[in-house]
């Protein structure tokens, strides 16, 4: 049995039973799309978490009118802590400009009416990796005792919620992946079963002419693989198209909420989905043939 021959016969059969295969591919595309959307959302939540440095960041908002010497003293004290990797002094003007970054031109114009003193000066403290959240909170409490400090934000609440979201997103993605795999196996398996039933005359003729297992099963395996690949490809294409169409709006929303841009799934991931879809299709076909086709 040659692969080329199997592909040729599979192509002929899929043309003859186009409707059957289109229904299967459509169903699977919806399943893959659901999975893709979940993963896309998870990727963006992760992006926000990365941008905020997880729990390795503290913002020290300075009191209005704090003397430069007090600020310098505070800065040196913070830099002396072993858990601190860097301290960056952000003036009120700099804070205002960084807020406008990432927004659209219209939003920037609207926001510039906000007075400059609405953005307090701050010391942005970066902690080293691996600092426990309890230690971060302790550092924040010590910093708050300095007279130049108005407020200390350790972002523990935000990071906690982000982590929960990320964990939930990952679990959902795993669950959806398994569900999609099961869907592929069932839908492809059922489609192949119908195809076998519809082609029993052909199969009988091939067997009487001396066809072995591989010759009879080959085209069905190809069809299963094509269904899985087509569904994965269509879903990735639709996801990409939707992302490109909505990116500007999504960017503005995410920038306003979290100060980051939207991200798409890595290219390697899309390739992985195509490969996984194809293999799942072949597997679904093989399992169905094992049950419904006796050669």
């Amino acid at each position, binding site marked *: 049995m040659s692969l080329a021959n199997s592909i040729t016969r599979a192509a002929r059969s899929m043309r003859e039973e186009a409707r059957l295969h289109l229904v299967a591919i459509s169903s699977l595309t919806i399943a893959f799309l659901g999975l893709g959307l979940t993963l896309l959302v998870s990727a963006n939540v992760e992006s926000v978490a990365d941008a905020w440095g997880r729990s390795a960041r503290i913002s020290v908002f300075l009191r209005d009118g704090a003397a430069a010497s007090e600020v310098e003293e505070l800065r040196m004290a913070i830099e002396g802590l072993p858990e601190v990797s860097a301290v960056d002094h952000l003036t009120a003007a700099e804070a205002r400009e960084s807020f406008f970054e990432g927004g659209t031109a219209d939003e920037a114009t609207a926001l510039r009416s906000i007075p400059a003193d609405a953005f307090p000066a701050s010391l942005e403290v970066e902690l080293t990796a691996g600092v426990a959240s309890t230690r971060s909170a302790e550092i924040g409490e010590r910093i708050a005792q300095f007279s130049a400090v108005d407020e200390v934000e350790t972002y523990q609440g935000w990071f906690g919620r982000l982590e929960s979201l990320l964990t939930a997103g990952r679990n959902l993605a795993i669950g959806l992946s398994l569900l999609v795999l099961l869907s592929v196996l069932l839908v492809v398996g059922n489609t192949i079963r119908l195809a076998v039933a519809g082609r029993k005359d052909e199969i009988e*003729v*091939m*067997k009487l002419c001396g066809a072995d297992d591989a010759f009879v099963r080959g085209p069905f395996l190809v069809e299963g693989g094509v269904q899985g690949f087509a569904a994965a490809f269509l879903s990735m294409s639709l996801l990409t198209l939707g992302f490109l169409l909505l990116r500007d709006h999504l960017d503005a929303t995410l920038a306003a909420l979290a100060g980051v841009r939207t991200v798409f799934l890595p290219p390697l991931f899309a390739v992985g989905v195509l490969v996984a879809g194809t293999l799942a299709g072949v597997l679904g076909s093989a399992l169905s043939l094992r049950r419904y086709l006796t050669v």
Partner: protein
Amino acid sequence: MRLFSDEPKQGGGKPFAFFRAGLSPSSAQKPILVFEEVFKFFKADQPTLRDVNLTIERGEFVFVTGPSGAGKSTLLQLVYRKQTVDEGRILFCGRDIARLTSESVPYLRRNLGIVFQDFKVVPHWTVFENVAVALEILSMSRRLVRSRVAEALERVGLAGRGQDVTGTLSGGEQQRVAVARAIVTEPALLLADEPTGNLDPHLALDILTLLEEIHETGTTVLFATHDHTLLEQRPHRIVYIDDGRVRDARKGLSDLAHTRPTVPHPESAQLDARPSNVVPLGAPRLARAY
């Protein structure tokens, strides 16, 4: 006479037949098909075939006939292993096909050409596709497939009809397609199981004539039929099956009245007895055709 133009010319007979069976040229002298004490039961107390001893020589044309339900089709089905014997053995080119494993059966069938009463063509395929499938199974190149199919179609009188959808052809033409598929691989043995059963007398004679032409190129033909008009018109050897037993009339119908059923082997009553020279289970499969 060569059947296909790309066939290398060798002295006498059909050069590929016994090579395809994986045997040496000296095997060409042996009978192509031998039934030895074959029993087949569909009901425990009523054998469909009992103690069949039959030898078919290479290049013979043999009618297999008998009343309805006599076992004509069963005899042929045992050869292409749609059925298995309950006792005895069947030697095809010297190999016991009754002992073949199921994985080996496809390779046996590649050495056979089979024509059926109900044609067994795929109606929504083209004529070309129906004939080519026998060669695609052998992994032949596309060029060679096209060439061989064209020659086979010409041989059966369907030249230039390759692109016609088979379902649109008449019954006689569909049977010709089936014959083309059966001969395109140049088989050693052609089995025809009531090939004229669904055809009118005129077409039946056409098909018989076609198979006789194929026979003249050296192919051994087993033709199962209950149509006595065909037997009357052609003086071929007749194997008559009645009540499970076989009568052999080598000179045709006129000889049939003078023959007696083959004498049962003394051991045939012992249904669990096995001949001493039975090939053990797991005999190696026949070689591939190509």
